[in-house]
């Protein structure tokens, strides 16, 4: 067993693991077919190698800094592993004046051990303000919402570029992605009424194409285009995204029919019912994340750096300047006076 551990602790294996990690990181990140998950292989080798080295390598017992660095590194690996198993990463668009709907969340990644509790989130979206400088240069983002805290009270928070919210253990961060939504009232021929919102593409990224396809409750496919009377974004001046009081119209396009245009409060007759434009809202996209071991990963990384600094101060510096070997500056004041 000890022999096996010693072989596993080989410094040569460390170098092989490091070279393999560097190569696979570059190859995996450049090729979607291979992907970066392949780096798990060299990471696994390095973790086993490091663990075995910590158990068998005697030099760690006499070099505290080196020991702290490698323990810190091992803890970073452990936190990465736990993060991969427990993580959640998703995106959701929430309508101004509307509530968070767990069913609308698009999951990007979910760890095997993640206990999904998104349906417990109670959140109501408020105003969104994003300031732009000339050249469509995005500045500060301020998205306000109310959420039900663990204590049961309803709390209001404004999140932005460097501030996120923690709701039911999930981290909600405002993204650059946001846009307009048209509120639509549908009245079927049977008299049933429904209110909904049609999200338009991200703004101002797609300000030239504010078109979305909607399937009415009666099953008809309709293309709706949001057209502002005057341009909302301005490439040459300061402007703010988030206003909804600008005059606009909604173009309705149905295959094989002439295009119609209706304004706020107007109705249009469609197959199986009548649609009425009730108003304009904005939507905000959030990144939802669950990474419970991230703070510990930071602590472990800081520990590793402290270990490196300690090793540098106690082992590397003293060796480089042994007593009596200092060289007078004049000796090096030139390159040629030899």
């Amino acid at each position, binding site marked *: 067993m000890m022999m096996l551990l010693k072989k596993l602790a080989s410094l040569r294996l460390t170098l092989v693991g*490091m070279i393999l990690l560097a190569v696979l990181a570059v190859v995996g990140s450049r090729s979607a077919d291979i992907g970066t998950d392949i780096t798990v292989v060299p990471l696994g080798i390095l973790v086993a190698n490091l663990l075995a080295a910590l158990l068998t390598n005697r030099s760690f017992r006499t070099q505290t800094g080196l020991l702290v660095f490698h323990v810190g590194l091992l803890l970073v690996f452990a936190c990465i592993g736990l993060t991969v198993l427990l993580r959640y990463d998703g995106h959701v668009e929430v309508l101004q004046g509307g509530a968070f709907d767990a069913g609308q969340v698009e999951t990007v990644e979910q760890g095997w051990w993640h206990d999904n509790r998104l349906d417990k989130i109670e959140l109501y979206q408020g105003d969104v303000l994003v300031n732009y400088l000339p050249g469509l240069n*995005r500045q500060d983002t301020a998205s306000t919402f109310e959420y039900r805290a663990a204590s049961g009270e309803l709390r209001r928070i404004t999140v932005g570029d*460097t501030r996120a919210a923690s709701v039911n253990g999930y981290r909600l961060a405002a993204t650059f992605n946001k846009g307009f939504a048209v509120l639509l009232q549908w009245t079927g021929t049977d008299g049933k009424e429904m209110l909904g919102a049609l999200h338009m593409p991200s703004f*101002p990224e797609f300000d030239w194409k504010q078109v979305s396809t909607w399937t009415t409750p009666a099953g008809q496919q309709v293309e709706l285009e949001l057209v502002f009377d005057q341009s909302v974004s301005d490439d040459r001046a300061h402007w703010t995204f988030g206003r909804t009081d600008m005059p606009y119209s909604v173009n309705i396009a149905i295959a094989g029919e002439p295009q119609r245009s209706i304004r706020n409060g107007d109705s249009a007759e469609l197959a199986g019912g009548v649609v009425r434009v009730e108003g304009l809202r904005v939507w905000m996209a959030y990144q939802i994340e669950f990474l419970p071991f991230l703070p510990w990963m930071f602590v472990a990384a800081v520990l590793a*750096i402290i270990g490196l600094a300690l090793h540098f101060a106690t082992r590397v510096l003293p060796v480089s300047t042994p007593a009596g070997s200092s060289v007078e500056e004049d000796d*090096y004041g*030139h390159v040629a006076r030899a």
Partner: protein
Amino acid sequence: MVMSLALERQLVLIAVAMLMIATIVQFAGLVSGRAAYRPTAALYAGVVLLLGAAIAGRWMRENQGPFLTLYDILLSGVFSLTLMYLLISVTLPAVRGGSLVTSPLLLILGVWLTGVSELAVPLPGAFRTPWLWAHVLSGKLFLGFCLAAAATASVMLIRGAALGEWSSRLTPFPEQSEKMIWVLFFAAFICHSVMLVAGAVWAHSAWGHYWSWDPLETWTLVTWLMLGGTLHARATFRNMPQGLGHVLALATFAVAFLTFFGVPFFSIAPHKGLM
């Protein structure tokens, strides 16, 4: 009073001219066998003062630090590399022979700087965090230490090639220079580790991902692995030829240099903020 762009340009041009003189002084010293470090150090001090003034003036005029555009990164890069090398070489005489390598390298960066647009781009909101400062400062320290180590390794390689008496004169005390390479290399490793951690914290607060395998992050990891791998190799193979260690130190600096000055401009999203 705010410094005009025209004055900033003049300061940069004079600084680049001084780097050109430093390069000529170095090669002239090599050919003639005359002392070259002191005049080079004086020229470097002038470059630091001029570029420091240019950065301060630009900072006050634009009301933001040099963090975003290629011009900003080159301006702060030439300033910090010159300052770091000057401080290191003044403190550690054994690395002074490296001026032969740092002078033309800094000159290339300086000439590149004069050819790019000085137009300032407003910083996105995500850049207004102290973690950006920690990330950038540790990055500058890393590259400064790495430059000094690589420059000294280069002249040691030249010495090792035994090209003549002149090559020996570059490092009159090779044992001390050899030790300094690895002290500086280790310091670079610590600073690079701090830069990685601070960058991950910043990226998480700004873009929601502490690590996203974009080209800049991937090549930064490769640089870290090369730093760690080189130090590991020296510890593992005690009989490793000195020259191989120098080549590894040089290769690490080359990858770091390309990561700093090349990759950010092929990778559009990570460091520029999205619309």
